[in-house]
């Protein structure tokens, strides 16, 4: 476990982990948005990689991926973007969120070496379940990267025990069935699921998928150690697209006040 993960894990805050798409709407905007998120109190950052066939994502993140693709953003450039973020002073753990095919084409070994050298802390592959992840898991530990595990309310009990006890970085608990996207309601019995996930887990348990308001986020404080917000933030970036390209300073200001409105008051 590296220094950045140590700080993350020892934090007593209700941890905020935002997701944004690399290259949306352009590389420099991604850098400034990342720094803004850290200034607003983000404890870690998930950086998505644009992909033609994102089958775990809803329409908001699909559109962000299309904008990223239009900027010719790819996995290699996303990883290299992280070293630029480090040069610009970003201190929180960064997790690369990539579909497996992109990893395969770049080459798992090449990716891992590049990621380690660029200051990446973790990898999350939404279409690589535990059963298929043996090799990547082994290679990630050799390169000091956390392979983030996702667990779902449909995950069987014995598998939940195994995944939560072996989790590194943090354990990602999916709040509801379905793809990423803003939701007005969550699954009944979610608290029990989170409780079960926490039971055997040595790392913080984060809840994600569908969270878009301060009220929703506060609802899980107590049953989880942190939260992930993706689609709601990406949607705000979509709204600010033209300003992020031409009037960035103003756009970042608006973005920061949006993030502040989203966060529970005590987490800053």
């Amino acid at each position, binding site marked *: 476990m590296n220094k950045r993960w140590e700080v993350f894990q020892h934090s007593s805050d209700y941890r905020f982990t935002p997701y944004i798409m690399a290259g949306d709407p352009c590389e420099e905007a991604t850098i400034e948005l990342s720094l803004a998120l850290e200034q607003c109190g983000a404890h870690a950052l998930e950086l998505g990689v644009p992909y033609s066939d994102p089958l775990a994502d809803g329409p908001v993140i699909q559109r962000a991926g299309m904008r990223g693709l239009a900027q010719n953003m790819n996995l290699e450039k996303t990883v290299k973007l992280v070293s630029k973020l480090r040069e610009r002073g970003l201190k929180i753990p960064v997790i690369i969120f990539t579909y497996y095919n992109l990893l395969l*084409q*770049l080459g798992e070994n090449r990716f891992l070496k590049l990621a380690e050298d660029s200051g990446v802390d973790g990898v999350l592959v939404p*279409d690589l379940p535990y059963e*298929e992840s043996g090799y990547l898991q082994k290679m990630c530990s050799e390169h000091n990267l956390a392979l983030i595990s*996702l667990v779902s309310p449909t995950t069987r009990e014995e598998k939940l025990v195994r995944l939560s006890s072996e989790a590194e970085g943090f354990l990602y608990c999916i709040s509801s069935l*379905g793809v990423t996207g803003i939701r007005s309601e969550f699954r009944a019995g979610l608290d029990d699921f989170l409780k079960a996930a926490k039971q055997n887990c040595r790392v913080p348990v984060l809840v994600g998928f569908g969270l878009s308001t301060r009220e929703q986020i506060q609802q899980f404080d107590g049953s989880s150690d942190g939260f992930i917000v993706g689609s709601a933030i990406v949607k705000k970036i979509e709204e600010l697209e033209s300003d992020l390209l031409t009037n960035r300073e103003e756009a970042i200001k608006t973005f920061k006040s949006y993030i502040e409105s989203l966060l529970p008051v005590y987490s800053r």
Partner: protein
Amino acid sequence: MTTATVPDNRGRYGVFGGKYVPETIMFALEELETAFDEAIQDREFNELFQRELAIYSGRPTPLTKADRLSESNGGASIYLKREDLNHTGAHKINNAIGQALLAVRMGKKKIIAETGAGQHGVAAATVAAKYGLSCKVYMGKEDIRRQALNVFRMKLLGAEVIEVTSGSQTLKDATNEAIREWVAAVEDTFYLIGSAVGPYPYPKMVKQFQQVIGYETESQFKEIQKGKLPDAVVACVGGGSNAIGMFAPFIEKDVPLYGVEAAGMGVETAHHAATLSKGSNGVIHGSLTKLLQTSEGQITEPYSISAGLDYPGIGPEHAYLHETKRVTYEAVTDEEALHALKLLCENEGILCALESAHAVAYSLKLAKEMQKDQHIVVCLSGRGDKDVHTLMEFEEGGE
């Protein structure tokens, strides 16, 4: 031969296959695998499946000798396995019946399906009506425009057709969307995949429900040719369900097998669907297989005049049979397929699907290199009524 050992217990065909899906649906794949393995061990289930194939779809389909076509072409004689004579006009119904019976057995009341040209969508809507299931069919906006007739048929059968506007708005995106819906509704919904693709156990299951094509062919051919096996077997390959079903009984036997992909405007152009000839290893729709993609791993849009072959991936067992060289995969252009379709029409009075015409085109080439006393069996996977509009457009455009 090594094929007897695939798939292994992890759902692998060599390096191909597997389950590359979100964690949320992993339990559903396990549940499906268990239910499927139990069902195919159950004599009652198998008898029910065979009976439905007979009295609902009209099986066995005939094996027709194409006398005039073979004569005018020269070389080996050509036999046609008439999957076009199935209910709903293609082999797709075999698999749809099998999966629907499994869905009923598992107590699922809702099915979802993806479709490109609409043939699998129609088959899914048909079995949903027959077995009293609700049915949602995901179809790309572009395909809905091109295949208005099949869209109407599905609605007539009581299915809901959902327009997919993501990505390139065709089959690959419709499949993504069906998987997304499955992830959301996995607890009470059965995903009825139309081809020998997708995460394990789908490739195995689709083969099981399509292998009736090959087994019927084998016994029909043996009866005509006094116990002999064909000298070659040819089938078209998009995702590869008719081909894997046709090849199934012959894989372990000494019979040359040929899969025919769509070369579209030519494999040397950017407009083809020749996944095995031009693709590379990657993951699509939950399976590691060959696919058409950029060097960075973005999946590219294939092209073929035949909507059923217009798919950037291929079933993992075909990728394996290609790699082990057990099956020879060739590619046939739009133009060659159209020419073969016309020859079959004019010489045999059979209008086949554009997909099947690719297999016919290659068998005509192959026959010329073979002896007069040799025999080729071609899987005529579907009828061509659905393609009349495309054929008219092409004729008008060509003149």
